[in-house]
């Protein structure tokens, strides 16, 4: 039965579409790269607020993080692209999609980094305070670097999740590889080969990304945190 199924696959369509698929792949990587920067920014600032002494800052960051990570990213994407124009904010699809993903994955990053900060030994805070370092300086030089290292595995998973979620922005017409594949399918009407190819692209990307993350973890572990 599986052999019969494979016989109905014709990968020439993939060969013909390689240029478009290639450009779609580049777009996916671009959105991912932008998303990573945004997600880390949101995560670090949010985690700082989440663990600060100011109750309003803590409250806001907690509400933000809990709301965004408990609601579907696809709905955020639709909101950014279709709902914001109703109040006059018209964002291009690429921007709307990336922004929505930054907020969603960023909210997850806030929780990850918060756990990382709480895992930093209390003695570190004591030593930094005893030396007279200000709260901001403590956060920047002592706490965040260690929290980051502790959080690296979970942040890595979040990153991979971001890469895969870029496929969602195809729903609002932003260009990335899944959307490109769907456009081709709309014309050529056969889809299995293209989805398999797109799937293979993501698999390879995830594999490479995982490898990079694991070697980074190993390199940082040498200095023993």
């Amino acid at each position, binding site marked *: 039965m599986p052999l019969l199924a494979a016989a109905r696959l014709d990968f020439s369509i993939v060969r013909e579409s390689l240029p478009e698929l290639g450009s779609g792949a580049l777009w996916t990587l671009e959105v991912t790269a932008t998303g990573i920067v945004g997600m880390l920014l949101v995560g670090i600032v949010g985690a700082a607020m989440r663990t600060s002494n100011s109750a309003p800052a803590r409250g806001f960051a907690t509400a933000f993080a809990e709301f965004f990570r408990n609601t579907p990213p696809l709905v955020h994407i639709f909101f950014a692209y279709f709902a914001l124009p109703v109040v006059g904010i018209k964002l291009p699809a690429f921007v709307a999609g990336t922004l929505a993903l930054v907020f969603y994955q960023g909210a997850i990053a806030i929780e990850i980094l918060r756990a990382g900060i709480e895992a930093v030994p209390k*003695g570190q805070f004591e*030593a930094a305070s005893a*030396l007279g*370092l200000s709260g901001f300086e403590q956060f920047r030089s002592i706490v965040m670097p260690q929290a980051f290292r502790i959080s690296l595995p979970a942040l890595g998973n979040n990153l991979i999740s971001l890469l895969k979620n870029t496929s969602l922005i195809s729903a609002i017409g932003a260009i990335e590889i899944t959307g490109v594949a769907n456009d081709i399918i709309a014309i050529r009407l056969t889809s299995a080969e293209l989805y398999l190819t797109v799937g293979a692209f993501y698999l390879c990307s995830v594999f490479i990304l995982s490898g990079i993350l694991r070697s980074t973890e190993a390199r940082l572990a040498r*200095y023993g945190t």
Partner: protein
Amino acid sequence: MAMVAMSHVRKAFGSNEVLKDISLTVDPDEVCCIIGPSGSGKSTVLRCINRLVSIDGGEVIVDGLSVTDPKVKDVDLRRRVGMVFQQFNLFPHMTALQNVTLAPRKVRGLAGAQAEETAMRLLAKVGLREKAQEYPAQLSGGQQQRVAIARALAMEPKVMLFDEATSALDPEITGEVLAVMRDLAAEHTTMIIVTHEMGFAREVGTHLVFMDGGVIVEEGAPRAIFENPQAERTKAFLSKVL
């Protein structure tokens, strides 16, 4: 003027009264050793001096500054007070040198080169000049603690606090840290040392304080107290540890 003057200090954590009524004066150049059973509040006394812990009642004057005065900033106190912890608390993601130069650069505002020069001098003083580029994970416990001492000294404090600095070290290694502390004492550094090392307290200390249950039970010259303790509790404690 006393370097550290504590009068009727009280501190409770929740319902637990850790310090009941502590009055202690430490003069410049003194090596004040605080001994006593666990839970007697010794570590809390140290932490009241640099405001790592805020007191509930009484007063602490450090080099003329009052810890209860809201106008006195944390950093003003902490620039004058250096602290060495039982668990060393070195910053694991920084080299020994970076650990020592961090506070001089960020708090005292020294330029990088100047901070490095001071740091290398201090690392040499504690016998670890060659280890400047190593990370804490690559150093033994005794070496880490010596770096921690250099790190505290880099701020040029008026008084050095030691919170059971050798308790977490293997017995063979405590010697190298005690030797550094002995040198500091010989250089007339004002030191307040919480310790279980009775031999050190007896030979290097100039002022011995025995604490139990949140109060100072007995204080005076180390030799006098070790040889002729007055209070019953002091006698009981010393007979157990000596």
